[in-house]
């Protein structure tokens, strides 16, 4: 048949039947997977440091939520290798399009943790300047950010820059129409974008088996002509290797890539969720044995790339980081009610000016407790 792609082209798009893995669950080295480079030792050490810091940040955020400082916190504990791997695969001038569960990645990307937590503390919606940090606001509506990443990637391509956009998305998000439209659009335009699916097995309470009949989520790429891969999402070495390869492929002008990481959300959906209603402890314990931080630590210790002293130094750094965050989060954060009208449009409409004046008068008439608002 004319126009039919050669079998080889199809093979190049399909993911491997098993997730790519460099390190076994017990921290021993697995047989090197074909076609992927192991990241440099220095980078692995840095990844370990970031994972320890990231996990400590995550624990601190959970504590702050219990103390009532955050309205809600969706933890990414257990997905640490994905969070850090995604950040290390990107350059600072690449664009990241995160979801609400990717706070750990944002902190690792160097965004001020207080600005990251602005959303969850309820001070405003997005606390950081997306243009300054090349990171879109954390996206709550599922998979909508995949299209923004496709658009940004198209903008980068059209400007002749070699930047790449990476969109984070969850297993549940791959059921949304926007995800499929993003894959299709970027494949047609050959835009430099990487779709990184963190398959943590649950969309709140609904397990993967009720989400899809696909052999793996990575197989959703082939229908759009997108090169796809699946990776052990709790193996930092594999995640970083596969994502670095995907980013390089996209940067080289070959088009988008879909990467699925098999991982696990150790905590409930958020602090407001009760995971015991839909999954048993046995399953959680099985995944605890595959913990991404312990796995990398064992590998690096075994290979002599890390020693107990270095680990202790990193843990101290993480404690200091958490303590500084605690102090800053416990400080009073003034919110300014009149700002509500300032950013709806570039210039407020006459109606917004009227409403602002009305609220200002209300606040002025209120008792002194409103001071500073």
């Amino acid at each position: 048949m004319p126009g039919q792609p050669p079998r080889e082209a199809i093979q190049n798009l399909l993911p491997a039947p098993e997730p790519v893995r460099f390190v076994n669950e017990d921290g021993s080295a697995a047989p090197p997977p074909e076609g992927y480079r192991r990241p440099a030792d220095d980078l692995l050490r840095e990844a370990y440091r970031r994972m320890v810091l990231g996990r400590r940040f995550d624990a601190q955020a959970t504590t702050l939520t219990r103390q009532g400082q955050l309205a809600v916190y969706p933890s990414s504990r257990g997905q640490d290798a994905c969070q850090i791997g995604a950040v290390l695969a990107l350059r600072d001038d690449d664009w990241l399009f995160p979801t609400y569960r990717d706070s750990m990645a944002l902190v690792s990307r160097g965004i001020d943790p207080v600005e990251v937590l602005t959303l969850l503390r309820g001070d405003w919606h997005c606390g950081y300047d997306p243009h300054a940090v090349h990171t879109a606001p954390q996206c709550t509506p599922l998979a909508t950010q995949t299209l923004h990443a496709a658009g940004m990637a198209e903008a980068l391509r059209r400007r002749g820059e070699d930047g790449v956009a990476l969109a984070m998305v969850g297993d549940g998000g791959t059921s949304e129409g926007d995800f499929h439209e993003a894959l299709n659009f970027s494949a047609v335009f050959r835009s430099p974008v990487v779709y990184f699916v963190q398959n943590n097995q649950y969309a709140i309470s609904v397990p993967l088996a009720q989400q899809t009949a696909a052999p793996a989520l990575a197989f959703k790429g082939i229908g759009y002509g997108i090169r796809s891969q699946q990776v052990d999402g709790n193996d930092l070495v594999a995640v970083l290797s596969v994502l670095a390869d995907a980013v390089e492929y996209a940067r080289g002008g070959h088009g988008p890539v879909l990467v699925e990481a098999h991982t696990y959300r150790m905590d409930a959906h958020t602090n407001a969720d009760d995971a015991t209603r839909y999954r048993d402890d046995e399953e959680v314990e099985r995944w605890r044995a595959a913990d991404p931080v312990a796995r990398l630590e064992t590998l690096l210790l075994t290979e002599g790339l890390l020693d107990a002293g270095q680990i202790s130094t990193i843990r101290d750094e993480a404690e200091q980081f958490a303590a500084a965050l605690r102090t800053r989060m416990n400080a009073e954060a003034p919110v300014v009610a009149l700002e509500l009208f300032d950013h709806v449009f570039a210039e407020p409409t006459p109606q917004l000016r009227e409403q602002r004046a009305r609220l200002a008068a209300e606040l002025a008439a209120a008792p002194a407790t409103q001071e500073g608002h």
Partner: protein
Amino acid sequence: MATMTMAQALNRALRDALTADEQVLIFGEDVGALGGVFRITDGLTRDFGRERCFDTPLAEAGIVGLAVGLAMGGFRPVVEMQFDAFAYPAFEQITSHVAKLRNRTRGRVSLPMVIRVPFAGGIGGVEHHCDSSEAYYAHTPGLKVLTPATVEDAYWLLRDAIDDPDPVVFMEPKRRYWSKAEVDLTRRRPAPLGRAEVVRTGRDVTLVAYGPSVPVALEAAEAAEEDGISIEVVDLRSIVPFDDATVTESVRRTGRCVVVQEAQGFAGVGAEIAARIQERAFHSLAAPVLRVAGFDIPYPPPKLEHAHLPSVERILDAVDRLQFDDEPDELYLTGGRA
């Protein structure tokens, strides 16, 4: 001076915007080789290349979502939704992202983009081709909603929309696409974005209308003149921002007002306008503000749309009910059971 249709004026606006600003991109379904199903983008791909005006896969959320990313990346996308009702798949992108991104980011990310929506009926279109969807957008904070009624406004309002730093839903009254006028586009005459215009002055009644209903309102005013009633017609041009000043000033002078819209009446733009007038000009009003709107029904099939669309007669009936004498309004007294 040149004679052109509204469709040609819109095409001209897109051409001039593409020429004026390298960041302007036009995309959507069939906007390339075909020039759009209404030919609004006719010849743009030929003249500006596929990099500036291009077809996308068929997916409206995809088109708008892609525009968000491109606008974040420094471009000024102008996207076409093929028909009003075909824009609904993009609703989440429009309401959750297009409308909110500036606010979510405290003004750090602006989205200068235009979503063109051919809307409303009167063209004999089969189902899903004739919705008046303006209220959905006007109800969403963060979107500007413009709709031209004249050939000249079609050009200038679209240029304004493309130059604006905020996202604009640009609603094109498709039954006016083929209306013609002699215009001089080298010199701007119309008022700036956000201002309504008094398009006919009068003493006794104000008709407030927008988009496809403006010519109907003008025709009604003409007919009323013969009966000795002097009608002023206000063309909103911009639903958001809403020009309270022009509308209120007119109603204070005339003391009577009918709001005309083609959309179904319940919870529509006309309801908002009537409420605003009563909040601002109550003591000037000699009669309740009335609305002439479409019925609260899904848009009718082609052979029945004449029964649905606000007509000159229906507007004149409403004008008659503005209590020029003290006779009670029979329709209202019987609660519609007459």
